């Protein structure tokens, strides 16, 4: 297959959770900016199509690699594959894997609760710890991770998911500090409501933002070396208010 002439920046982004609409949109943005791309997700046929799309539209190299969030034992081999693709080029990481399930089902069935925690939290711990030696050795690179406003405070309707994202946020806070001396930046992204397959058909959403907008904001913030962003930005204010509600009152709220 032939594509447009590559203008390459000589960088590589691995996009984990690349079947998600934000992951897909981010991969395209990064490729348009001149990076080569590794797409990782469980649905290989889907991400192969996205890889082809990147190459046809931008001329950048893109490769699809199978990655199962909870197959932790396979993550060593996955990370080795990613480094092989990057070669001597700088590797950057975009992590968009996540799952949202019905809260009541998760409470009634531990296997669902466990899946929520594993995919939204443990999967990142697994990949991050395995990527760390290489990231530190290359003395640079950007890591962008999708957290959630749901991780800012446990709410009655969504706390299993929220607690996993809260764990993710805490991990990122410490990891950012640990990698800082080596020049690796870590960006925590806290999206509000995005118009994705995850939120399609959910009641009570407002001011839903597009995955393309989120992807652009992520790339811009990563290039600026930001630590944390909310997207859309007004969610910082909403969450400030939600966090400031005293617990005696908050526990009575059915949100």
């Amino acid at each position: 297959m032939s594509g447009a002439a590559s203008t390459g920046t000589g960088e590589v982004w691995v996009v984990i959770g690349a079947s998600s609409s934000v992951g897909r949109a981010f991969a395209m943005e990064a490729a348009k900016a001149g990076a080569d791309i590794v797409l990782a997700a469980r649905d290989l046929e889907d991400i192969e199509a996205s890889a082809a799309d990147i190459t046809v539209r931008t001329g950048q190299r893109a490769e699809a690699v199978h990655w199962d969030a909870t197959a932790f034992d396979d993550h060593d081999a996955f990370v080795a594959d990613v480094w092989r693709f990057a070669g001597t080029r700088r590797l950057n990481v975009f992590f968009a894997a996540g799952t949202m399930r019905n809260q009541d089902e998760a409470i009634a069935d531990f296997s669902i609760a466990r899946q929520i925690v594993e995919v939204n939290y443990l999967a990142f711990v697994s990949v991050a710890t395995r990527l760390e030696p290489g990231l530190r050795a290359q003395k640079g690179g950007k890591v962008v991770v999708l957290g959630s406003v749901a991780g800012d405070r446990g709410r009655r309707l969504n706390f299993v998911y929220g607690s996993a994202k809260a764990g993710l946020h805490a991990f990122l806070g410490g990891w950012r500090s640990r990698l800082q001396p080596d020049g690796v930046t870590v960006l925590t992204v806290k999206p509000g409501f995005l118009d994705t397959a995850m939120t399609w058909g959910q009641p009570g959403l407002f001011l839903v933002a597009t995955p393309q907008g989120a992807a652009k904001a992520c790339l811009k913030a990563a290039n600026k070396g930001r630590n944390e962003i909310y997207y859309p930005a007004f969610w910082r204010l909403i969450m400030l208010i939600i966090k400031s509600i005293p617990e005696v009152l908050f526990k009575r709220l059915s949100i």
Partner: protein
Amino acid sequence: MKWKDVALTGWGRTSTARTQAARAERRGEIETAFNEPGGEGLIAYGAGRSYGDVALNDGGRTMLTGRLDRMLAFDETTGLLVCEPGVTFKDLAETFLHRGFVAPVSPGTAFATMGGALANDVHGKNHWSAGSFGSHVEWFDLALPSGEVRRVSPEGDAELFDATVGGLGLTGIVTRLALRLTKVTSSNVVVREARAPNLSALMERLVETHGRDTYSVAWIDALASGPSLGRGVVEAANHALSGFERAKPKRAKRLPVDLPGVVLNPASIGLFNALYYRRIPADGRERTVDFPTFLYPLDALGDWNRMYGKRGFFQFQCVLPYEEAEAGLRKLLEVIGEARSASFLAVLKSLGEAGRGMLSFPRPGFTLALDFPRKSGTAELMARLERIVLDHGGRIYLAKDAALSAQGFRMMYPELPRFRAVLDRVDPDRRMGSDLSRRLGIRSDA
């Protein structure tokens, strides 16, 4: 699949459907949708740029295909592009224009999708030389109502191919298609514009472009009457000899509110049309513009459909065979003029060979298109126009339509029995359906 209650409208905003919609993000989801219960039928909805109810399914189900918009392979030597149905003409321009390839046929908006272009067998300003969209499609993958996905080509299953090209989405949902792009010499076109003082002069000037110019279109001042009836401007264009630039992703200006109905009145529209005519010098002019600017003039105003206010507008487009065209067009323009209901400019083009789809709109003749703001009396006017079209052996374009009668439809589309036979074969349980298919009695006489 997750199904969500939504309200969808056509571009003209005269038709609205309450429907259960799912939004496919992966091809596999389309196949599974057919296996889920839900009795009222399913239709695909892409960019929402069809004017009437062809992609609406009130009370039924709708598959939104806009996010299936990936390009899967492109061969520079043959120009063959394999892509998903949600890819738009805008995507094509941004990806390929600077590389020397363009869509072989393009409708008047770049926001339309490939799936929609196939289902309506769209035509462009080069129909005389290039035919309609379907003649540039090598094959497509079709998710049949049974859930089976089949690759369909003219060599393999010509009946199903010809039923799907221009088939209004009723044979299933296209999940991939292979389209031959056209190689061009430049991303710019040289456009010649000339005035024509009346209808016969305008028609003559359009016919003169055949075989000489790649693209041609005319704009008619539909409010001019008497000796000036049918006066207008003819644009003929050809690709420049060299020079490739990227399609600039222009930000369309937005119209943040619906304009109140009074803004567009016969006086303001008449003034606009007269100015449009007089801006061209009497001896014509020539200019070089980038290709998308020539093809998609209305896209510069993002949601121009809001100009017609909350009640929306009907678009009327018909084709009249060459031998009947002048008499028919004269009649149409007279009735439209009397009704004082016409819109901005009307568009006149000349068409070549008929499309290969059983319900393809194009056939040799002149095609006239114009908008009518919806108000009292518009329905009666549309019915009168339908009658005139029938009297002159013409047909109305279903991608634009929200007003045609079932009886008129049957007379305009004589291949309907063949089309029905294919539907009976691939969709015996009537799992596909749309507001248009019910209004026109496509599955069975109403």
